[in-house]
């Protein structure tokens, strides 16, 4: 709809100011490009990581980024955090994407415009909770709980750049 209006506006300009065809095409490309950029601006990219927090070091396992480890270790007793899986979700405005992080755990993320996302956590198909917040770049949304032994599970969500 917006592109149709822009095209109509460009046609009016062409008629009024007698612009040549090249100028018209350039103008059309400019407006169409603007529409594409604005459409892209509505989508959001979210990184979802499944993290294991433990007191014992696990050789060969992939460690989480230092930024996440520091933040989690500041709050929780576990000192070692390993990333079991990571998914990148690119979600259009007002759309929802589901991602399976383990056999039983999955998340459903909805882009609610202006950086606000709604995350539903499912375990074995049953929804446990839904959290909604604005996710800014460099900020983290963490859902966590106990796991077997002296360990914990974390689902860490952050906004991709």
């Amino acid at each position, binding site marked *: 709809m917006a592109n149709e209006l822009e095209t109509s506006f460009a046609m009016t300009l062409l008629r009024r100011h007698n612009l040549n065809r090249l100028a018209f095409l350039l103008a059309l490309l400019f407006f169409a490009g603007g529409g594409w950029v604005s459409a892209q601006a509505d989508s959001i990219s979210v990184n979802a990581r*499944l993290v*294991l927090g433990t007191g014992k070091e696990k050789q060969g396992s992939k460690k989480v980024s230092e930024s996440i480890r520091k*933040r989690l270790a500041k*709050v929780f007793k576990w000192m070692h955090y390993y990333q*079991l*899986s990571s998914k990148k979700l690119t979600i259009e405005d007002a759309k929802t994407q589901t991602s*399976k*992080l*383990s*056999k*039983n*755990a999955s998340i459903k993320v909805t882009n609610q415009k202006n950086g*606000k996302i709604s995350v539903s*956590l499912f*375990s074995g198909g*049953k*929804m*446990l*909770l*839904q*959290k*909604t*917040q*604005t996710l800014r770049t*460099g*900020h*983290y*949304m*963490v*859902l*966590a*709980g*106990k*796991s*077997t032994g002296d*360990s914990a*599970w974390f689902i860490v969500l952050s906004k991709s750049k």
Partner: protein
Amino acid sequence: MNENEIQLKVQALVDGELTGREAEELRQRIDNDAELQQLHAELTQMRGFIADSELPRPLPESSDFYWSKISQAIEREESAGERTSRSIPVSRWLLRWLAPLVGVSAVVLLLTLRQPTAPDLGIMLSGDHELELSSDEIDVMTYNTDDDSMSIVWLDYSMDIQRDYMELWLD
């Protein structure tokens, strides 16, 4: 014929209501009866007084035109009465529709106000954070860092993610 009936007959004769043979017979009887003669004379005199004192009331127009005017006036009043009677149903019609409408609106409003609200599992956190739990059985704790750069929801819900994760890959 009793005395009263005879007096009424004399009165009718004076008023000109008796004609023909009946009037002739009564005149003969009056001629032979002094009391009846006196009554007849009194009634005739009385009638003369009344006729003299009554003011003449001539019609302003011809009688046909006069009565047609009266007839038209009656018709006008009747049609005005019909118009009045027609406006009453409009107000009644409005009342008939408005009253139920107001009643239904009041019931709807009452039901809306009394509608049981959904179980409030929502937990308002700082900023624009909202948390909704699907089950009351799961305990949660929330934590936000001072700079709001990390929000944590801790669920009292155990998951063996290591085994789950391995099974996901084995599937």
